[in-house]
């Protein structure tokens, strides 16, 4: 067996190391504005990794929604709250957390040892329903992008469920923040009556 090292594998490893470094920086930095910016960069690095791993649709969703929209939401929240993490975590808690994370990480790595290797076409994940999507979707749905035909065709109910989730979240956000506005208005009205 010749070890064939492809450029995309090297890019893959470099991007993963970048992600790990950014993750550690997010955990250590206390200035929340920097943390939010780093989480945007983290999402963008993730999007680049998806391109390397052939998931172009996922990459542009992550770049638009993960890196764009959630960063905007977080900056908005920082403007309404504070941009500094106050308390340093107590050493006892930090050690407890480190122990739990080390044990859990070790368990996960142990569980990964008999997983199929990266890039192996004989892995079970590639042999259940996916060949049908790849072979027949052009005849059945007539969209060249298989991700689109699965998302909107074969798994359309999944996407409808996703829409319900977004709808529920939107109602939740409106209820939480809309109530604040109404209460402010009534308190203003009360003030008017008093004067």
């Amino acid at each position, binding site marked *: 067996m010749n070890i064939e090292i492809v450029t995309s594998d090297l890019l893959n490893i470099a991007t993963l190391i970048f992600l*790990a470094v950014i993750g550690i920086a997010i955990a250590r930095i206390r200035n929340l504005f920097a*943390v939010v910016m780093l989480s945007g960069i*983290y999402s963008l690095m993730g999007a680049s990794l998806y391109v390397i791993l052939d998931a172009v649709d996922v990459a542009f969703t992550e770049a638009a929604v993960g890196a764009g929209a959630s960063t905007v939401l977080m900056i908005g929240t920082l403007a309404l709250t504070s941009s500094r993490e106050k308390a340093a975590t107590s050493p006892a808690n930090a050690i407890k957390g480190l122990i739990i994370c080390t044990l859990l990480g070790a368990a996960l790595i142990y569980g*990964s040892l008999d997983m199929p*290797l990266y890039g192996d076409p004989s892995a079970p994940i590639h042999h259940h329903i996916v060949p049908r999507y*790849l072979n027949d979707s052009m005849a059945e749905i007539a969209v060249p992008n*298989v991700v689109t035909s699965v998302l909107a065709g074969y798994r359309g109910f999944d996407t409808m469920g996703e829409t319900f989730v977004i709808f529920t*979240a939107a109602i939740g956000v409106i209820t939480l923040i809309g109530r604040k506005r109404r209460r402010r208005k009534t308190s203003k009205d009360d003030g008017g009556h008093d004067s």
Partner: protein
Amino acid sequence: MIDYSFPGLFNYWVVFLLMMIGFYIVIVHENLIKKIVGLNVFQVSVFILYISMAKIKGGTAPILADGIEVYSNPLPHVLILTAIVVGVATTALGLALVVRIQESFGTIEDNEIRDIEERQE
């Protein structure tokens, strides 16, 4: 013959490291915005886990074209597309809760909120 032992399981191990960083931020840090950022770190690591499984060496993006034999697996891509959007919805809801907590308690540090609640009791 392609040898699959490089990078082997490296992707999954980095994913587990990222998961544990996110989990550590969520359970140890007191600031609520930081907790939500930690949740995002965890989320992205799960996405990378799925997308790494979908990759086939020598394959290309699953867009059908003439002359291409090997495509990467499109199914995890679809699942993760859904998960990204749902993830942003949960982030938005969490941040709205943080704004309300700031209004009611005047702080977004978990330990200070706990102190205030104990005093109220």
